[in-house]
């Protein structure tokens, strides 16, 4: 390997600054051993949009000439290390820069590494991560997803822990000494952060993933038309109007089959159809028109269309009728309403387990309490990453506070 190519897959706004620190950190760390490097974001992404998957890249090479082979590109063709800083990205990503669903390990080279921050088990993650036609390594850094904002940064040491872990994964390019030196010299560095990087270097867990392992779902794709197949005049056909759900009742809007957007979601609404008063507010207020009207007048959030913004939970006047739950505890996009119609008792058990999960119902992003980051940091340092569940939950569920 004369060059090390890394991608950081992150969520728009919440992790934009995190991803930039990681990719810059990689280049500046490799510089300590005389390497050349570049850091850049994928230009077609829209990293200023809440939660939308986006990518940053860091490429380091022994010589400037080797580096040039990877320059003037939007995205490398393959990467040695894929870094996913939120484990719900394991379900695949669909960004502004990409058509169809891109498996999280799509660019990872055979025998390369997929490094994730996650509290899930390897097996749980491999239910979501798509199968790959080559073996690779899955490395886990025990931490919850570090989400902050565009103008604030969450100093929970995630960036240095990733860099410390990378020194273990690609020691020939990033020595731990080089990483520590680069952290110390950085404007956001500190001795405490250097310690965090070293601990992450020790604690990184890695497992081989065989070709036979992973989610067997075939990701939806989109073939780009040729110039003469495209409608002229920068014109595209509109999405047709929808249809009744069944037997002339209900309403299901047609949706863009080429851009589904659900990988933007880090939390999803779980709906109690028994307590729904059919007030229409969720349906009307949803900014993505993701609710389908069911024949009985209730509203089912279509999981192929939901971005997980939580507006429905906020506007729902019925307590616990809509509860946002972390995406990591779900394995598919199946209809909740269909499950409820099939077996109301079983649905009640399933729903109660999801919305009763105190960890999973804490909001994935947003400010919760003063001192929260410091507490999380402490936990990360002492325990190698223990989830903090305390704080303000979603707006419409006062009783979820731990």
């Amino acid at each position, binding site marked *: 390997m004369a060059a090390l190519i890394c991608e950081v897959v992150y969520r728009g706004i919440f992790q934009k600054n995190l991803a930039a620190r990681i990719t810059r950190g990689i280049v500046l760390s490799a510089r300590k051993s005389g390497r050349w490097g570049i850091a850049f974001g994928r*230009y*077609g992404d829209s990293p200023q949009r809440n939660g939308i998957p986006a990518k940053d890249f860091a490429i380091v090479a022994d010589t400037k000439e080797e580096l040039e082979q990877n320059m003037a590109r*939007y995205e490398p063709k393959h990467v040695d290390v894929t870094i996913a800083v939120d484990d719900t990205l394991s379900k695949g990503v669909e960004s*502004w*820069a990409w*058509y169809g669903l891109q498996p999280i390990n799509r660019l990872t080279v055979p025998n390369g590494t997929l490094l994730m921050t996650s509290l899930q088990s390897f097996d749980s993650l491999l239910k979501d991560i798509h199968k790959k036609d080559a073996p690779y390594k899955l490395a886990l850094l025990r931490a919850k997803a570090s989400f902050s904002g565009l103008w604030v940064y969450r100093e929970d040491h995630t960036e240095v822990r990733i860099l410390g872990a990378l020194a273990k994964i690609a020691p020939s390019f990033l020595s731990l000494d080089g990483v520590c030196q680069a952290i110390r010299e950085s404007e956001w560095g500190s001795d405490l952060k250097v310690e965090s990087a070293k601990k992450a270097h020790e604690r990184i867990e890695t497992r081989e993933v065989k070709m036979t392992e992973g989610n067997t779902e075939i990701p939806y794709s989109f073939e*780009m*038309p*040729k*110039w*003469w197949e*495209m*409608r*002229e*005049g*920068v*014109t*595209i*056909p*509109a999405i*047709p109007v929808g249809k009744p759900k069944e037997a002339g009742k209900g309403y299901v809007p047609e949706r863009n089959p080429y851009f589904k957007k659900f990988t933007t979601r880090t939390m999803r609404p779980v709906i109690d159809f028994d307590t729904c008063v059919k007030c229409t507010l969720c349906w009307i207020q949803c900014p993505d028109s993701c609710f389908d009207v069911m024949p009985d007048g209730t509203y089912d959030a279509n999981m192929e269309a939901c971005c997980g913004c939580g507006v429905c939970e906020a506007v729902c006047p019925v307590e616990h009728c809509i509860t946002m739950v972390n995406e990591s505890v779900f394995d598919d996009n199946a209809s909740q309403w269909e499950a409820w119609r099939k077996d109301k008792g079983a649905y009640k058990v399933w729903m109660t387990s999801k919305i009763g999960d105190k960890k999973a119902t804490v909001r994935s992003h947003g400010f919760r309490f003063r001192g929260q980051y410091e507490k999380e940091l402490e936990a990360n340092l002492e325990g190698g990453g223990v989830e903090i569940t305390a704080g303000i939950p979603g707006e419409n569920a006062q009783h979820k506070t731990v």
Partner: protein
Amino acid sequence: MAVVTQAAPAAHEADKELLISGSEAVAEALTLADLDVVTAYPIRPYDTVMQAIAKKISGGQLVAEYIVAEGEHSQFEIVKHASTVGARVFCGSSGVGWMYAMECLVVTPPLRVPMVALVGNRALDDPGAFGVEHNDALVVRDVGWLLCWIDTSQEALDTTLIAYRVAEDRRVFLPLAISADGAFLTHSQALTMVPPKAKVDQFLPRYNRGDLLLHPDNPITVAPQANEDWVIEIRRQNNEAMARAVTVIEEAYADFRRVFGRGPENPWFEEYMTDDAEVILVGMGTISLPIKVAIREMRAKGKKVGLVRLRWFRPFPTERLVAALSKAQALGIIDRDYSFGSPFGSGVVANEIRAALYNADRRPPLLSFICGLGGREVTLEDVYKATDLCYAAATSGKSDPKTHWLGVRE
């Protein structure tokens, strides 16, 4: 929207002869073409056409939406939108007004909006000046506008009818600018034959936007944001439309001659006394008039000089022009425009012709002249001087790379 009056076929109806300016001739053509939407914002010399159209509407000869915009940018935006919903549209401007509309000028070709515009050619500010220079219209030469130049009121009328026929052809759907030299054409009245509506109806079909029509019954999105995955394909489509325009223009002129019994056989350029010409001068617009006079004078003295007056600049008639020019012993390209810092400091037309000749089997010596800027008259002496330099080059057999400025105080 204009109400289409289906005039009874009146083949016997004769042309009327009117004494009108180039701008008024355009307004006559717009009336005959049953224009739907026109936008206006005054700037000299284009404002003459906007006044002429207003008169047509107030006189009840034309039923059309006449919208006075608050600036050229809105002026071109409004017709762009009107065209996407199926209206036959017209607008125009001059000099820096045309520049102010630039954002709209660049979006109309990819959106495939067949707007027809009159550019009353005017020098770009500064200094503020009313006189003709071709730089205003030439600014859109790379972005997909069809561009032509005219030199008489008759040609203004005829070309306006042809313009709709070409631009609104489904194979083309591109905006088209007719350039008319400020003052010499826009403000000067000449005897002009105005055909009856029945003939025009035989020549010009209704505008049919087809599957690109923005209408509730044809739900489409126009102009979505696109990234690098789409743009080059859209440019390729645009390029193809421009290439297809060549055939459509030739068809339109042939049909024009069939219906109206007049019009050139060669749509692309006028050839004046070029058959035996040793020196061929090339220019666009009303510059042709003093050149023709000078040619006659020079021919009386035994100098075999000819003129090629370029009508169509986009699409550029490369092969036909090369065939017409390469037979001369020397060429003199007279630009009423400038392109500072360009190869040899030449004007735009000279450099286009140099490029067109590059692969020609025979490349006569080529001289480049800049003349008549800011509306300065092109004198016979200017033309004699240019011709003499061309003869010197013909004798030496060498191109003179220097660009000569004619009629400058020095």
